[in-house]
């Protein structure tokens, strides 16, 4: 009886502990969560812009991205806002929206664009909205060879008060080359556009490219308060071509499981076979002991 009582007490403690966790999450679910909403504007090679809304919710002490939240995207000032469409956030809390073709034509004749993003009437989340105001701009990237020197040159024009495109001075674009897992910066942070809106760097000659030596060069102005994020991207065969020397299929320590070095496979298998033969012999002998 006493044992039963003790067992019951232990189970009760366990249930209380687990129950506490469940209760916590239940409490979390009941209250609409406050969220943070940010909106960014990106334009690549002067093509159609892309809007990115990011939804973050407070989890313990930090803000983490929230998935499956519908974000509405609007165009225009508050009095004549037009709903462009909606997208749902991904695991990292980001919702991407490509500005439709129809609107792009309208934007070609406008100097200032106002976009808004809003989380509205979402179960479990408080309403939130935000907007960005972007000035029209144009970017140019030219990759040229002058006196045997490879030069990457970037130029930016933005609309002035009179609606004319004029060079933008004093911006700090960063030059990158796309790599497998990210972007490799090839310029330093002191590159600045001059009165012509231009800046240039000497392109390194020792970067590995693909098998044809192709590299993707990217110039980025990141989240500028007037122009948003602007990217100029161009591909060129200025890289050192990668020669496939068949290392992928060689039997090495760093290759795939199928291409493990034969001596290693033979050694490991022999040792294991030896050990487990002995273990099996011992188990077999135990049956013999039983039957004696």
């Amino acid at each position, binding site marked *: 009886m006493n044992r039963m009582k003790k067992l019951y007490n232990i189970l009760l403690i366990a249930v209380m502990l687990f129950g506490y966790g469940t209760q916590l999450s239940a409490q979390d679910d009941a209250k609409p969560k406050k969220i943070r909403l940010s909106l960014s504007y990106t334009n690549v090679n002067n093509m159609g812009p892309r809007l990115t809304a990011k939804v973050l919710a407070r989890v313990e002490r930090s803000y983490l991205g929230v998935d499956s939240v519908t974000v509405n995207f609007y165009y225009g000032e508050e009095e004549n806002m037009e709903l462009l469409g909606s997208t749902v956030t991904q695991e990292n809390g980001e919702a991407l929206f490509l500005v439709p073709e129809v609107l792009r034509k309208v934007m070609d004749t406008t100097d200032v664009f106002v976009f808004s993003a809003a989380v509205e009437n979402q179960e479990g989340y408080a309403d939130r909205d935000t907007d960005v105001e972007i000035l029209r701009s144009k970017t140019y990237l030219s990759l040229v060879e002058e006196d045997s020197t490879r030069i990457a040159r970037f130029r930016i024009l933005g609309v002035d008060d009179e609606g004319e495109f004029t060079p933008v001075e004093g911006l700090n674009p960063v030059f990158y080359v796309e790599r497998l897992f990210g972007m490799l910066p090839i310029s330093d942070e002191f590159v600045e556009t001059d009165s012509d809106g231009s800046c240039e760097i000497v392109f390194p000659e020792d970067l590995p490219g693909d098998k044809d030596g192709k590299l993707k060069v990217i110039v980025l102005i990141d989240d500028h308060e007037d122009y948003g994020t602007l990217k100029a991207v161009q591909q060129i065969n200025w890289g050192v071509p990668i020669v496939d020397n068949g290392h992928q299929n060689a039997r090495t320590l760093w290759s795939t499981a199928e291409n493990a070095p034969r001596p290693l496979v033979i050694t*490991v298998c022999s040792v294991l076979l030896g*050990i*487990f033969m002995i273990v099996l012999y011992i188990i077999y002998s135990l049956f013999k002991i039983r039957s004696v």
Partner: protein
Amino acid sequence: MMNLQKKIQVMTNQENLNYTKEKTIKALAPKAFSNYGKLWVAVLVVFSLVGLFFYIQQIRQGLSITAMSDYTTWGVYVSNFVFFVAISLVGSLISAILKLSGAKWADPLTRIAEIIAVSAIMFAAIVIIIDMGRPDRFYNVILHARIQSPITWDVIVISTYLIISILLLYLPLIPDMAILKKRDLGLGKWQKKLYNSLSLNWQNGEMQEKRLNKLIRILAILIIPIAFGIHTVTSWLFATTYRPGWDSTNFGPYFVAGAFMVGAAAVIAAMYSLRRAYDLEDYITPKHFDYMGRLLVMLSLVYLYFNINEYFIPAYKMKSSEMSHLRELFIGRDAPLFWTVQILGMVIPIIVLLFKKGRKPLPLFIISLLVIVGAWFKRFLIVVPSLAHPLIPTHRVPDEALHYFPTVPEWFITFGTLCGALLVVTFLVRFIPVIPIKETLEGQGIQTNE
């Protein structure tokens, strides 16, 4: 008349022997928990459950509830894993190395060592699955195993060591279970049934004994290279990288020496506790403590020698890649913990144990606890500070990413695994004799033929 006297004498001797035999069996048979024992179990169960609760939280929320990051990818879990692997080596030390070298005095300690080894290696495997975050990832480790990877070797060697340790615990138990199942020692019905099936129809026949002794000897020989292998391979998880503090050819023997030291300390702590809990003063004597103390001081000196090698030579060269790591250890952020561990966990034990008085049961028990706690933190110092000093240049890394201190869930999960391992030891001790009965009886010159 003379014949009758002789007969009476023989009968009296036989009765004496029988009396001693039954007394010994009764003293060594597993016993129910005392009130303190029940309290001990309750505490262990509660902390294990708390650890399990936080582990469930970790499964639900992911490894983000830990302080591990892109840089400190191995934290307290991996140092705890290395600690468990180290402790588990004691099985091979006592049951194999000492046994094969003819150190008869260690016979009563073999089972304690094997019990510790089995529970420690079980929890080493559990801890590494905890460290993976999602437990189903272990399936991928098996499915996509690369034989070139030390991680694969570690999985293989740990599984093998677990199987062999279980066999080495079980085989010498067979005659003891046969002895226990036949006696009315207040054992439960299921317990007797279990002993009956596990004793494999043991009749103490010559053939059975010959076979069993042969198997135990084979296992004792087999477990030595595997035990060395398990900790050497664990050290290779670190030493096969170029990281400061890990890039060492000394790491294999350094780990093995440290493992034998902490394993011996664990056996001493268990000896002392079990001796008191189960009144085993006649079987675990001050002589055993004295010998174990000598063994521990010898192992500590070997480990001290490896420590000097491990730190003095890199400090003498002060390669730029090692410099910041060594400075942090010697005079920087990790210095208080480093020097506490080296002094309390190694230097003081060596000094105290050199004196006979230091090898008396109680002082030796206290010293062993110091060695065990020191050894746990030593593993932490091996794993964590090296990760904070990566060789690859760090680029735009927030400062906090290079610092690691375990979170509350990590501490509770780690403590839960330590309590879980102690719980397994406690329950094994509850249901199997901690001192080999057959060997003890034979040591007293008593035949175990029933």
